[in-house]
């Protein structure tokens, strides 16, 4: 009988390696990944990379066009635009990452409870989420921003709340389908408590779609943060933020267009990169592609 165990299972030569290889086989994904990496490096090593102090004003050299000293010119207070963009990546990334984290934690907790407990708990929680979802994201963010006030922490919290419902929905749906799989019943039959089943079996199997959602939402969070800053509800001056820079640049668009254009490009390119990589992550984790690669 032990002879059997010598038989190797059907060929599974390092699937992870193959999947990663497949992941990077598309040019846009490579470009997107490089961009994200660059933005991360900008954020982490901003003081080392930025040519100038982003807060240093030089009124004599205000609103300068592109030049060798100032690649993207200077703003209305004579601050170097490139340095401010590099420092601004910190704001964007912080807000993006932490608001996604907040939304993910809240949303997954709500989705897990609603999906697993069911009944009226489910109805109440999900109706609240539906209500939140029915309000346009920017308007809700503006409202929460007005209530909570400006500041990095508040922006993160506000975006976190705004994005919670999508995680709650995705998680709940996943819980509902995972809950009726045999291995969850098997966990119960093996004597596991409800809590243990949720933590050990349901939660880990709900992670994949949430990861996909998170990568895609990072781009959205950065975009909404920029929009809030553009509308004057975001990060307060003098902390640089891309949205705020577009807003300032728009006032001098005719005389010194570089600032608005450069800041917009940074936003567009970063959001695009997150979207492309998010798509690729989804393909990577899509159950239909599991085993196919």
């Amino acid at each position, binding site marked *: 009988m*032990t002879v059997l165990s010598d038989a190797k299972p059907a060929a599974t030569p390092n699937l992870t390696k193959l999947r990663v290889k497949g992941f990077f086989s598309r040019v846009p994904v490579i470009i997107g990944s490089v961009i994200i990496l660059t933005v991360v490096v900008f954020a982490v090593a901003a003081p080392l990379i930025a040519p100038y102090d982003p807060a240093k004003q030089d009124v004599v050299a205000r609103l300068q066009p592109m030049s060798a000293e100032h690649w993207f010119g200077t703003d209305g207070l004579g601050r170097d635009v490139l340095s401010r963009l590099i420092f601004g990546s910190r704001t964007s990334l912080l807000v993006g990452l932490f608001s996604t984290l907040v939304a993910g934690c809240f949303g997954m907790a709500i989705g897990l409870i609603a999906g697993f407990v069911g009944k009226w708990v489910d109805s109440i929680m999900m109706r609240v989420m539906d209500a939140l979802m029915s309000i346009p994201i920017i308007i809700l963010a503006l409202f929460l921003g007005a209530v909570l006030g400006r500041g990095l922490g508040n922006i993160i919290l506000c975006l976190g709340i705004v994005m919670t419902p999508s995680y709650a929905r995705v998680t709940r749906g996943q819980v509902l389908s995972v809950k009726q799989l045999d291995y969850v019943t098997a966990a*119960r039959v093996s004597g596991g408590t409800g809590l243990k089943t949720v933590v050990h079996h349901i939660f880990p199997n709900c992670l994949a779609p949430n990861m996909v959602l998170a990568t895609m939402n990072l781009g959205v969070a950065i975009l909404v943060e920029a929009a809030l800053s553009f509308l004057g509800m975001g990060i307060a001056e003098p902390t640089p933020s891309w949205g705020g820079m577009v807003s300032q640049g728009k006032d001098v668009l005719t005389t010194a267009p570089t600032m608005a254009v450069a800041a917009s490009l940074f936003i567009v390119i970063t959001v695009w990169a997150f979207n492309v990589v998010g798509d690729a992550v989804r393909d990577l984790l899509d159950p239909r592609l599991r085993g196919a690669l």
Partner: protein
Amino acid sequence: MSHLLEVKDLRTEFRQPTGTLHAVEGVSYHVDAGEIVAFVGESGSGKSVTQYSTLQLIPMPPGKITGGEIWFDGRNLLTEGQKSAALQSVRGAEIGVVFQEPMTSLNPVLTIGKQLTEGMMLHLGLNRTQARDRAVDLMEKVGIPDARSRLDAFPHQFSGGMRQRIMIAMALACDPKILIADEATTALDVTTQAQILELMKDLVEQTGTALIIVTHNLGIVARYASRVHVMYAGEIVESGPTREIFKAPRHPYTIGLLRAVPSLADERDRRLIPIPGMVSSQVDPPDRCAFINRCPYAVAECETEPRPVLQAVGTGHVKACHRDIDLQTTPVRQFEATARTEAAAAPSATTPVLEVKHLKVTFPTYGGFFKRKTGDLLAVDDVSLTVGKGETVGLVGESGCGKTTLARAVMGLQEVAGGQIIFDDRDITGLSPSQMRPLRRDISMVFQDPYGSLDPRQRAESIVAEPLGNFFPDMSAKARSERVKELFDLVGLNPDQRSRMPHEFSGGQRQRLAIARALASEPSLIVLDEAISALDVSIQSQVINLLEDLQARLAVSYLFIAHDLSVVRHISDRVAVMYLGQLVELTGWRQLYENPLHPYTKALLEAVPIPDPDDAANQRRIIKGEVPSVMNRPAGCAFSSRCPLATDRCRVDKPPLEGRGEAHEVACFAVQAGA
């Protein structure tokens, strides 16, 4: 051009990231008008891909037909493009295909009339009225009652068996010369399966259509086919007339298959001889016999010789093997003990482990605009059953008869509407989940699908150790890991593989993991819910042997739920037959199979094809009709709507389950009256 379809040296490959998968490796065969040809083999043997390749129905890429000729109607189909008009007219018109899954192969948003007439209007140039008339004809031909009025019904309004009939009608719509049935009856209940196969056989006889049956069920082959091709790892390893293949197989794989399959004609104590190991990888395989790692007859020269080619051993009988093997040849190596482990203690029905008394399970039905509760659906109706210590009770019935619901009720996973469940002299009916939890140490369960019952994100050892952690929280990590190793050994898995993830195991190994988990807490009862139905024949026999050995060693009791009567016969001490939520017959395995009393049991037994072309049972008649829905259970005896013995009394009164002879209970007025 003498043959209707002639395939020569067909080769199909699939490009994969890990290399090239050789799915079909030089397959040649032919089909003549009016004959039934079968392709058998385990999953992954390439039998379906071969059929799809002839019609170029495989996805290209990654698939690619790299060689061969397919002669049909004087043309080589391979020279036509995949999307060419010539091939389009062959597919669907001249060669019809019936697929395995009747639930998914019909479009749910179109009426069946629309789906039936579409092809006719396209291929035969009929107008709408003519096409509809023809559709009605076809539906009557395949045995669908009220054909005209049901033409505008949607697929979901038909049962699985009816849908498969519709699929056949569709395949027949343009009078095809060949009908390919790709595992067409695998997903159906035994009685429905038998009806569909009889239908196809009759159609072949009437119309002269050739039928290609692709199946893993040797019983079907023996019963219907005139010629058989046995496939293994993308090659035909043996082919010949059905009788010769079954009576004088010459390839080790064919011999292995025949010995692994449980049959209704078996003695219960016949030990099944599984084919050890698994199909070797077909990704860039070496040029030698593909069966070598599982072959009990393999000798040194098999290692060095190139792939064996087909050689004639009789009229129309060919095999691909270097050695000259037949049923009498002594194997040169042995993989597994062929003797049955002697039971430590005889099973005793007198000390019951589980007693189910008058159990009733209902499901509420909802209706109306506000989804109000409108009634109760009786899924399990007054079932009484005992399982003794060290005993195996088989529970058989067709899908929807309530066997899984009964199992879930026993496991405390399903609310009970009435009756009692007594486990180990303790009433466990209606216990709350927290009251039930400590009891779960003594009752465990193995599920049907080994792919769904193991958490894909847990390692094998933590899966097996799960009950240990729950029931023995004080166990040290070392003791737990020792126990896990022991369990791995017990179920015949290598303990070195315990840190692997479930997807790294094969289906059979996964089911062993599930069994190891069920054994971990040393339960006195294991409920096996269709635990081997999803496995390939050779693996099935491995698991049956494993279960029997474990029972002999550990004196554990099994409640073995299955729809396959031949498997149940092999493992059970007593067998209970269920029909529409009721127990209709309950007796020892020998009485049940040798002297079945209830007409339903008889019908079930008659429907099971026996893997022996000479068995007279294969000529028996097949029961008509389908299992009615539990929603409209006939009044009186549930079986009265299909029963040949039914009288007026049966349609009014419900027959009780009464003893008849020694340890033989049956619920039938006609039998009780001595008819």
